[in-house]
C-alpha cells in the first residue's frame, strides 16, 4: 500500500539538495577557520614532558591501556554528542533542516586529513602541554565515531512506531520519561550496532593519531600507535609483530567483555512482536546473569537507573499552537542566519584557498582523486568477487556461519594500519611497484564488512525460496543470477558502503608508506593529502580533503544510495 509512496520519497531524497551544499560549506569553513586560527601556535613542545617511547615488548601492556583509555574517552564523548545532537535534530524542525545534512557530510569527510588542523587547534588551547596532544588524539577518534552513532539515533527517533508514541502521550509520560522509556530503548539495537562499527573505525584512528607530525615537529603519545611508528623508523619488524599481538589481545578482550554481551542484551529491545530464535547468551552475559553478586549489583544499579529515568522531569511546556505569522518570522530569521553563515564560509574558503592555490591545483587534485577512485572501484570489485561466493557458501551452512561470523566481525574491528608494515617490508624487499602493490592495503581492514554482511544475508535467505529453486532444478550461473545474488543484494550493498567509505579514509595512510628511510608513495589523492600534511602545506590539505569529500559524497549519492534503495525494494516481498 505504501510502496509507491516510498518510491517517491527515495526519489526525492536521492538528489543532493541545497542543504547538503550549505552543510558542506559550513563544515569546511569551520575547519578552515580552526586551522588558520591555530596556524600561529606551532610552538615546539619541550619534548622532555613526555616519556620517551621504548620498543621493549614489556611496555606494551601499558601502551595498550593508554590507547584503550583514549578509545573509551572518545566513546563517552561520542555518546554524549549522540544523546544531545540527535534529539535536537529530531525535535526541532529548523535545527533538523541543517543538522541532518551536516551529519551526512561529516560522515563522508575523511577526518584523517584534518588531523593536522585539529592537533594544532588543541595544542593551541593548551600550549606546551601533553593535554593538548591527548585531546587532539581523543578528538580524532571522536570524529571517527560520533557521526554514524548520532545518525542511527536520529533515524530511530524519527521512526518511533505511531501506536507507542500515542500510548506514551496518552499515559502522559514527561519528556524525560519518554526519552528513557520509549526513545532510547527503541534506538538501542541500532545504536549498539553502530557503536560497534564506530569502535572499529576508532582503533584505526587511534593508531594513526598517536604519532603526530606537524611540519618539522614530531610527537609521540605513549600508545600502541606510537610504538608502531617508532618500530617503523627503527626498522624493527619484531616490535611490529609484538604490537599486532598486543592489539589482537586488546580487541579480543573488549570484544568478549563488552560488545558480545552488549549486542546480545540489546536484542531485547528489538522491535518485534513475535518471539524469534534466541541465540545463546555470550559467556560474559551469562556470567553477569548467573553470578549472584554481580546480579544483585546489576539489579541495584538497574533500580537506581529506573528511579532516575522515571523521574517526572519535563521541560516547561511551550504554548502549543503558535500563530502562523510568528512561525514564519522565525523561519525567516533562521534562514537569514543560515545564509549569513554559508556566505561567511564561502568567503573564508575562497580567501584561504586563493591565497596559495590556482585552478591547476584543483585539476591535479581532481585527477589524483580519479586515480584513487579507480583504486577503490577495482578493490570493491575484487573484494566482491572473492568474498561474495565465500560468504554465500558460509551463510548457507549455519554451523559454519556461526563460527565464522564472529571472526569476520573481529577482523573488521582490527586496525588494519597495524598490518601495513609487514606488507611494506615485502614491497621494499621485492622492489614492487607502489602504485599497484600499496593498493590492497586500502581494503585490508574494510573487506570484512562485505564478508560478514554477505554471510548474514545468505543466512537470512528464506528456506522456501531455496527449496523452490532446488525443486525447479535452478543451478549454476542461473542460480547465482536469479536466486541468491538478488536475495543478498541489500546486505551486500550495506557492507560495500561501509567498506568503500573506509577505503577512502584508509587511502590517506595506505597510499604512502615508509620503512626506515625508504619512503613509498603511490599516485593518488590519499598520498597527495599525506604529503601535504608532512610538508605542512595546509592549503593543499584543505583542497585535497574537500575534493575527497566530494568524491565520497558523489559515490554515495550517485551509486550507493540508489543501489541500496533498489535492492531493498526488490528484496522485500509485498
Amino acid at each position, binding site marked *: *500500500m*505504501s*510502496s*509507491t*509512496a516510498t*518510491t*517517491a520519497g527515495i*526519489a526525492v531524497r536521492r538528489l543532493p539538495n541545497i542543504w547538503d551544499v550549505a552543510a558542506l560549506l559550513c563544515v569546511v569553513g569551520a575547519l578552515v577557520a580552526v586551522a588558520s586560527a591555530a596556524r600561529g601556535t606551532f610552538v615546539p613542545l619541550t619534548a622532555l614532558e613526555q616519556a620517551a617511547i621504548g620498543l621493549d615488548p614489556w611496555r606494551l601492556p601499558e601502551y595498550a591501556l593508554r590507547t584503550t583509555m583514549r578509545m573509551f574517552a572518545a566513546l563517552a564523548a561520542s555518546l554524549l554528542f549522540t544523546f544531545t545532537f540527535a534529539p535536537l535534530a529530531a525535535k526541532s524542525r529548523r535545527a533538523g533542516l541543517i543538522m541532518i545534512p551536516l551529519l551526512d557530510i561529516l560522515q563522508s569527510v575523511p577526518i584523517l586529513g584534518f588531523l593536522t588542523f585539529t592537533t594544532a587547534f588543541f595544542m593551541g588551547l593548551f600550549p606546551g602541554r601533553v593535554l593538548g596532544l591527548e585531546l587532539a588524539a581523543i578528538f580524532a577518534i571522536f570524529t571517527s565515531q560520533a557521526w554514524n552513532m548520532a545518525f542511527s539515533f536520529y533515524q530511530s527517533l524519527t521512526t518511533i*512506531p505511531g*501506536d*507507542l508514541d*500515542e*500510548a*506514551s*502521550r*496518552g*499515559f*502522559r*509520560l*514527561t519528556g524525560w*520519561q519518554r526519552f528513557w*522509556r*520509549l526513545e532510547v*530503548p527503541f534506538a*538501542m539495537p541500532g545504536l549498539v550496532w553502530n557503536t560497534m562499527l564506530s569502535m572499529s573505525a576508532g582503533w584505526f584512528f587511534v593508531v594513526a593519531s598517536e604519532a603526530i607530525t606537524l611540519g618539522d615537529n614530531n610527537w609521540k603519545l605513549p600508545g600502541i600507535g606510537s610504538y608502531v611508528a617508532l618500530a617503523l623508523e627503527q626498522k624493527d619488524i619484531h616490535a611490529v609483530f609484538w604490537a599486532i599481538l598486543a592489539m589482537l589481545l586488546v580487541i579480543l578482550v573488549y570484544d568478549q567483555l563488552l560488545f558480545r554481551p552488549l549486542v546480545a542484551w540489546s536484542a*531485547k*529491545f*528489538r*522491535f*518485534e*512482536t*513475535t*518471539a*524469534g530464535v534466541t541465540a545463546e547468551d555470550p559467556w560474559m552475559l551469562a556470567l553477569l546473569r548467573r553470578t549472584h553478586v554481580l546480579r544483585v549489583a546489576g539489579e541495584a544499579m538497574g533500580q537506581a537507573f529506573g*528511579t532516575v529515568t*522515571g523521574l*517526572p522531569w519535563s521541560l516547561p511546556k511551550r504554548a*502549543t*499552537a503558535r500563530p502562523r505569522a510568528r512561525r514564519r518570522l522565525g523561519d525567516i530569521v533562521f534562514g537569514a542566519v543560515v545564509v549569513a553563515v554559508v556566505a561567511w564560509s564561502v568567503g573564508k574558503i575562497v580567501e584561504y584557498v586563493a591565497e596559495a592555490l590556482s585552478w591547476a591545483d584543483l585539476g591535479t587534485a581532481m585527477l589524483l582523486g580519479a586515480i584513487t577512485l579507480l583504486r577503490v572501484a577495482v578493490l570493491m570489485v575484487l573484494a566482491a568477487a572473492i568474498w561474495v561466493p565465500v560468504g554465500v557458501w558460509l551463510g548457507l551452512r549455519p554451523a559454519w556461519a556461526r563460527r565464522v561470523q564472529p571472526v569476520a566481525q573481529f577482523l573488521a574491528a582490527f586496525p588494519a594500519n597495524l598490518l601495513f608494515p609487514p606488507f611494506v617490508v615485502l614491497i621494499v624487499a621485492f622492489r614492487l611497484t607502489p602504485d599497484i602493490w600499496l593498493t590492497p592495503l586500502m581494503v585490508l581492514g574494510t573487506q570484512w564488512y562485505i564478508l560478514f554482511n554477505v554471510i548474514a544475508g545468505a543466512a537470512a535467505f528464506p528456506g522456501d525460496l531455496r527449496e523452490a529453486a532446488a525443486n525447479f532444478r535452478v543451478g549454476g550461473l542461473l542460480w547465482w543470477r536469479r536466486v541468491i545474488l538478488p536475495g543478498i543484494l541489500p546486505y551486500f550493498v550495506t557492507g560495500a558502503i561501509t567498506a568503500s567509505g573506509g577505503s577512502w579514509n584508509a587511502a590517506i595512510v595506505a597510499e604512502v608508506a615508509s620503512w626506515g628511510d625508504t619512503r613509498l608513495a603511490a599516485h593518488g589523492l590519499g598520498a597527495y593529502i599525506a604529503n601535504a600534511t608532512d610538508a605542512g602545506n595546509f592549503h593543499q590539505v584543505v583542497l585535497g580533503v574537500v575534493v575527497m569529500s566530494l568524491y565520497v559524497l558523489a559515490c554515495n549519492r550517485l551509486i550507493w544510495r540508489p543501489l541500496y534503495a*533498489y535492492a531493498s*525494494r526488490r528484496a522485500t516481498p509485498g
Partner: protein
Amino acid sequence: MDATATKPALLEVRACRQAYHKESNADLVVLEDVNMSLQAGEIVGLLGRSGSGKSTLLRIVSGLLRPTSGEVLWRGAPVQGPAEGIAMVFQSFALFPWLTVQENVELGLEAQGVPREEREKRAEEAIDLIGLGGYESAYPKELSGGMRQRVGLARALVVHPGLLLMDEPFSALDVLTAETLRTDLIDLWMERKLPIESILMVTHNIEEAVLMCDRILVFASNPGRVASELRVPFRHPRNRLDPAFRQMVDDIYALMTRRAPKPVPSLQTLADRSGFATKLHHVSTNVLAGLIETLAAPPYDGRADLPALAASLQMEADELLPLGEALQILHFGELEEGDVRLNETGRTFALADTDTRKALFAAALRAHVPLVNVIRHTLEERWNHRAAAVRFRDELEDHMSPDWAEETLHAIISWGRYAELFSYDEESDQFILEDMDATA
C-alpha cells in the same frame, strides 16, 4: 436510563471539526460538526466504515489530537492534551516490547509519579483482575494476541480512569479470542469490578457494537459525521441468536448501505467529473470476481442479505461493504437496504470466460471510473506512452488525504492492470501503455 439525562455529562463533544489544511484547495474535512455526550455508566460505540472519522474522534476525545474547531469537555473542563482520567486501549496493543507485563502495566502510574510500592500493588491487582496472574515477568512477544490485549486493558485500567477509550480493541484478534475477551470485559463491567465510569469504543464490527454497547453512533463518510444514533435496548448478557438482536444488526446494515443523498454543490460534481474526487477502496479483482460468482449462484441467485452473506463468507461489515461498493461503482450490482443485488452485467460477468471478463471490466472502468480515462488519455497523447504516477497522486491529494490518495491510486493500478487498460512500472513509478491492441 432517563435519570442519567439530568446528570451532568461525563464527557461532552461540542461542534468538533477536524480538517487538514491544503495549500491549493479547500480544506479536507475529516470530521464535520460532531456533537455527542457521554454519561456515567454507559458503553457507547462509534460504528462506521474506515475513513469515516471515528478513530479521529476517539483521538480528539483522548486529547492526542486537537480538533480544528470545537471543544471537548471532560468532567466539565476543556481537554487541552492527554487528560488525567482518560485511558486508551489500542488496536495494535501498543505494548512496549522491552518492558515486561508488569512494567508495561506500571507505565501509566510511573508517569503520575506513584511511589514504587503502591505502583506494584495496583499493577498486580489490575493484572489479576484481567486474568493475567502469573504472567507478570513475561515479555509481550511471549504472549498470544489475546493475552497481549489483556495487558493493554490492564495497563489502561490500572490508572483508574474515569473513561476507557478502546480503538477497535478486538479487530486484531481471531474470532474465538475476541469473543472471550468481549464477554470477560462485559462480565467485569456488569459486576462493577472495573474502576471506570464509562467506555467509549470504536468498532467496525456491527455485531460487536450491538453485543456490547448501550448506545451506538453510526458514522457516515465524506465528510465523517454522525449519521444516526441508536439505543440498544437489550439487557446483558445478550444473545446473538435472539431475533430482536438479529433484526437490529440487519437494521444497522441497512442504515450503513443507504444511498447518501446526492451531493449538491456544483463545484464538487465538477471536480468529480475529472475523477480526482472519488475515493476508491483497493479491492482485489479476484475477490470481486469471487463475490460476483457467489452472488450469481444458488442460494443467492443474484440477491443476498448482507449480514447473512457476511456470516457465510466470514467477513466483517468493513470488509464486505467496500466490495459491495465496488460492484456499485462499476455498475455490476447495487447495494440497497442491507441487501446486495447483481444486475444484468454482473450476471453476464459471472458466466463469462477470462477474456470476456476482462473486456467487461475494461468497459465498466472506462464508463464509470473517470480517473481511468484520464490516465488512459494522457498515455495515448504521450509519444512514449508513459506518464509519471506522482502527477495523479498529487492531484488526488488535492481532494483527499494522502492515505486515501494512495489507496485510490492502488485500486486504479490494480484494476487497470486486470483490465489490461494500461500497465504500471513500480520501479519508475510510471503508468505505461504497452501495445494492448486487443483491449484498446
